[in-house]
């Protein structure tokens, strides 16, 4: 069970992860994009951080909706609408909720994934954040389906996400800026896939570090 507090802690932890990895994400984007992914994500999530105190009391759906709107209006680029859509769709499934069960989280991931797919029209294998989000969602689903608890399912999801992130290295980009590079996109890890991994990892970490509260 994720409490609202844990969700807020996750958002804070994710923002910190992004902030710490800002240069790293930007360097990844420099190799196959336009050198701003870390800057973009950090701009958005620093804005989110300033708003969290005002909304921490609302229901999880409202919190995620505010995150979505903040990201959409402050990131821009590709990641703004994509993460914005992810959080928007997630917020709808979490509307009115104060805590989230394994099944809630599963729906939230599925809906978030759908949001990104619909907005970005990328397919798995196109070397985008989808390449992490999609298998990670499946992994969580399977874990929950086979009776694993939240903590175990999270760990399974993160393990798959990490592998999937690395698996973007050898692929050829078909969406996003990296696709303009053609073959030269091969051999580089996708920045969006990396930030997506950080999102899932911080979700898992926030759960395990606070599971006793």
């Amino acid at each position, binding site marked *: 069970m994720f409490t609202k507090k844990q969700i807020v802690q996750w958002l804070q932890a994710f923002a910190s992860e992004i902030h710490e990895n800002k240069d790293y994400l930007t360097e990844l984007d420099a190799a196959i994009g336009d050198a701003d992914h870390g800057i973009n994500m950090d701009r958005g999530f620093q804005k989110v951080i300033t708003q969290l105190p005002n909304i921490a009391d609302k229901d999880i759906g409202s919190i995620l909706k505010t995150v979505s709107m903040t990201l959409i209006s402050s990131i821009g680029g590709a990641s703004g609408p994509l993460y914005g859509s992810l959080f928007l769709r997630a917020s709808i499934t979490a509307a009115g909720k104060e805590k989230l069960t394994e099944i809630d989280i599963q729906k939230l991931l599925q809906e978030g994934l759908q949001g990104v797919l619909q907005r970005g029209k990328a397919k798995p294998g196109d070397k985008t954040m989808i390449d992490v989000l999609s298998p990670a969602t499946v992994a969580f689903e399977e874990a929950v389906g086979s009776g694993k608890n939240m903590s175990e399912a999270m760990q399974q999801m993160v393990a798959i996400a990490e592998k999937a992130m690395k698996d973007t290295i050898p692929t050829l980009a078909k969406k996003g800026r990296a696709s303009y590079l*053609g073959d030269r996109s091969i051999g580089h890890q996708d920045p969006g896939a990396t930030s997506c991994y950080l999102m899932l990892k911080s979700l898992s970490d926030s759960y395990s570090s606070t599971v006793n509260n």
Partner: protein
Amino acid sequence: MKKLLNKPEDFVRETLAGMAIAHSDLIKVNFEPNFIYRADAPKTGKVAIISGGGSGHEPMHGGFVGRGMLDAACPGEVFTSPTPDQMLAAAQAVNGGNGVLYIVKNYSGDIMNFEMATELAVAEGIQVQNILIDDDVAVKDSLYTQGRRGVGTTVLAEKICGAAAEAGYDLKQVADLCRRVNLNGRSMGMALTSCTVPAKGSPTFELGNQEIEMGIGIHGEPGRERMSLKSADEVAETLALTIIEDSSYSRTIREWDESTAEWVDKDLTNTPFAKGDKLLAFVNGMGGTPQSELYIIYRKLADICAKKGMEIVRNLVGSYITSLEMQGCSITLLKLDQEMVKLWDAPVLTPALRWGV
């Protein structure tokens, strides 16, 4: 990083502030959300033309706001698409009742943000069309990928459609014209040096003293191929011939359908250039290129076009769609028809382009 700036995070805002006071006779600037708009907007009864994209391409787009060109421009962070709220606010500010054309360059970010903006504007009761520019022949395949980037043709489309809107074309006519300009324009660019995004503080890529990037976009991204340094004539030849010999290019593009209030996929194909074509030739500097070098390129380009039996009837030589302080150039060729010539020649009065008034 050596730039004339203060804090990197203030780069866009301070650029806009400077523009606003330098050109207060032509434009106004709204902050948060950021957009530049005609000082005399909204123009009742005129279709409003709005464009936008990342900053760092100055004078595009803000420098093209004014009489006979754009009604508003939405600048994002450097090389980062602006956000839907900017585009919506701009539309609300300049819509004169006859609708808004969003001219969008084909990048994932721009497309997604403008799509969201379109949906928001429609929800506000504003008539909207959005037309994509995807003219960069350096990007070869379109199937299953993002397709071609929008580059130099954007400037030409904004001028021509701006004149059309000024002349009283309705929204559908301006949109059709914009699509036609895009289908008749092709571009390609190259870089002698990289550029430095202020917030990053170091060059996006490293180029050796004897290396150039061929087939770059406008975001400091590496090009299609790294090559050894070439003479101006060789550069002009590579760019011009790739453009001229580009075969017919097909892709599927999403446009907003007003009648059904839905996104529809359109299959569009441009026809290759041919002998006898009348052209607008645009030699563009990437921001750090001296004007003298652009003329050297133009000289060779004119020669190549003449040899191919094509006639340059209009030209533009200067730095209009740039990548910060990057050195390099791009070439855009646009096949003109009489209507386009007339609209190109029509008066324009903006910070960066002006004639006839």
